[in-house]
């Protein structure tokens, strides 16, 4: 709720961090608050096996983190290891803020290739991924049965999704909820994969041209926004983000919606009566599904005080067992995936979606590009413009950003 208000704060505060500098034999590790208990466990384990290295654990908040990290990296007062999201890594690499980690990586074949690709640039590896995740579609099996659909064979194509959503929609219930409000990322994560599935993208692969208004992309955007325009998504779509949709799902006024596995725990706690089903994100006929690969990597700043000890600790953290312990969702290593905690049947489909995860383009103005796109989506949902027109406007703005 206070994500960006915190951003501006921490930018300044990081400027003078003195607690960040480590002494010899000490490794400072920044990890976010949701990792805290498991991180402490790992630290203890490591220190028991390596008595000459002390790990200094600092807990960061997820709000405002990108700015705090950026400022720490640029100010020269950086820790030794930082947890960052995959998408931030190449930006740091391009600016010489982190060191390559090819020598730390072991068992390259054990990693999900897309995860490594995300943090590879100029032929070198700049981060060690430890956590990956994607969205899928969560649905209410009870609702399916109610309208005579088989909950064990959920829709697989776009046409089937629309069909099922229509059947599920009635007074007081929406078949498939999309997002139209909240932070921009919510809608990027949910609508961009549809564009990818249809063979297009927001910007060209060489990042010189805006392609969001090409026919295949517009078709995908139309598909996404039509859920609202045809009444299959709730009336409140423009004020809803992923969390709001989860709440609507919990209140049983929504039958299907896209989200990640982190929602499952909340749903089970707040409405245990719901029989939760998970399906892969439906794809156009004859094409594959796609999703944005989310997740976290470790990076070592160029200004780290103790890079050598940091690398030793990093190798420990990158072990399959450590990754399996630390991650909130899935580890980035296939062998770690075998651990018991990932065997919950409800996670099965999320696992299946992983190979289809793709990184977002590593363009320096990506934040503004996504904002321009998001404004376009909102204009469509508001009824101000048709998809083609909205995407033309967005493409113009995106092109200007690419040309900068």
């Amino acid at each position, binding site marked *: *709720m206070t994500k960006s208000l915190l951003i*501006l704060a*921490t930018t300044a*505060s990081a400027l*003078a961090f003195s607690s960040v500098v480590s002494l010899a034999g000490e490794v400072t590790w920044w990890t976010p608050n949701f990792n805290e208990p498991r991180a402490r466990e790992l630290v203890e384990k490591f220190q028991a096996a390596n008595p000459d290295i002390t790990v200094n654990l600092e807990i960061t908040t997820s709000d405002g983190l990108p700015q705090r990290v950026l400022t720490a990296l640029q100010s020269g007062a950086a820790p030794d290891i930082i947890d960052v999201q995959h998408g931030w890594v190449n930006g740091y690499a391009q600016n010489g803020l982190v060191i390559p980690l090819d020598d730390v990586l072991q068992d390259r074949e054990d990693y999900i290739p897309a995860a490594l690709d995300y943090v590879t640039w100029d032929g070198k590896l700049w981060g060690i991924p430890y956590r990956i995740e994607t969205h899928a579609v969560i649905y209410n099996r009870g609702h399916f049965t109610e309208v005579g659909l088989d909950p064990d064979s959920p829709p697989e194509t776009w046409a089937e999704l629309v069909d099922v959503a229509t059947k599920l929609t009635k007074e007081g219930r929406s078949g498939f909820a999309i997002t139209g409000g909240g932070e921009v990322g919510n809608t990027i994560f949910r609508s961009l994969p549809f564009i990818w599935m249809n063979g297009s993208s927001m910007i060209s692969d060489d990042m010189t041209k805006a392609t969001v208004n090409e026919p295949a992309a517009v078709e995908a955007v139309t598909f996404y926004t039509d859920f609202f325009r045809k009444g299959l998504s709730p009336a409140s779509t423009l004020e809803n983000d992923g*969390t709001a949709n989860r709440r609507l799902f919990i209140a049983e006024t929504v039958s299907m919606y896209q989200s990640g596995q*982190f*929602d499952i725990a909340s749903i089970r706690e707040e409405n245990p009566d719901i029989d939760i089903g998970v399906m892969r994100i439906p794809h156009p006929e004859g094409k594959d599904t796609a999703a944005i690969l989310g997740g976290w990597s470790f990076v070592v700043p160029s200004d780290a005080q103790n890079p050598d000890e940091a690398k030793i600790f990093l190798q420990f953290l990158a072990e399959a067992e450590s990754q399996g312990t630390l991650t909130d969702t899935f580890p980035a290593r296939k062998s770690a995936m075998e651990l018991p905690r990932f065997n919950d049947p409800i996670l099965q489909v999320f696992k299946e979606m992983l190979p289809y995860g793709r990184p977002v383009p590593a363009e320096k103005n990506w934040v503004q590009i996504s904002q321009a796109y998001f404004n376009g989506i909102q204009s469509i949902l508001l009824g101000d413009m048709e998809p083609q027109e909205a995407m033309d406007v967005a493409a113009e703005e995106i092109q200007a950003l690419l040309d900068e």
Partner: protein
Amino acid sequence: MNSGTQNAVAGFPALKEEGGLKAPGLGKPLIFVGSVLVVLVCLFPFWWMALSSIKTLRELYTIPPIWWPESPTLGNYYKVLFESNIPRYFLNSVVISVGSTGLALVLAIFASYGFARFDFKGKPLLQACVLIGQLLPTAAIIVPLFVTLRVLGLVNTYWGLILVYMIITLPLSVWMLTSYFKAIPVELEEAAIIDGASRLGVLFRVTLPLSIPGIVAVIVYAFVTTWNEFIFALCFATDSSVKTLPIGLAEFSTEFNTDWGAVMAASVIMTLPIALLFLSMQRLFVGGLTAGATKG
């Protein structure tokens, strides 16, 4: 020497004691309707917040919304009071708000008196300059302010925040107090001077007592503003020994979830004390001054 203040007694306009003409007033029915409206408008969202603070997660987001929870719980309050940092932050907030309010009040009283009663070169310009701090967008001044504090060695200290809060409390306090001082008849002060009082004496013995409602208003303003201030506190107080309540609120949010029950409970805890404090200050918030003091 000064006959004006004797009738400024708690709550009763001096009029009644004088046995003067009957005050038209607003009329009971209108007062009643007006008060009910005001109370409803002001209290309704807060009532909703308080209700939410005793609901379990299950009952918070229902369709249709529930008024009174089936299983009310004090668990949120327990969590906030005993399992979070809120009590410590409460203490910090009190220290910082009291400190800021005090400092702002002292500085503002003098400055306002200067602006209200004196004429000097560049006065309009200086008055306008006082406002400048409030015009700067916060996003623009955070970083340089941080550097300033760092140079002074005041990051993560009570004094650091108190000082920085002068930017948001002082300008308004000066402006408001200047208006309140101007409303006091100058003749009273002139009379005191003729009787031999110094300017400072006049300030403390004549002007201030007569402008107590204004002083109270400024105290309330400074206190409330610093109590709820979020952005500066976030930047300049990163240690829990100095962090304030608004930051405590933000700490209930994690990556994908906000503990709304706890946030609502914490908000109730943040809001009620101030309202109660104001209630206890009502005695001072009265007027009825200078009846007959300026005659003749």
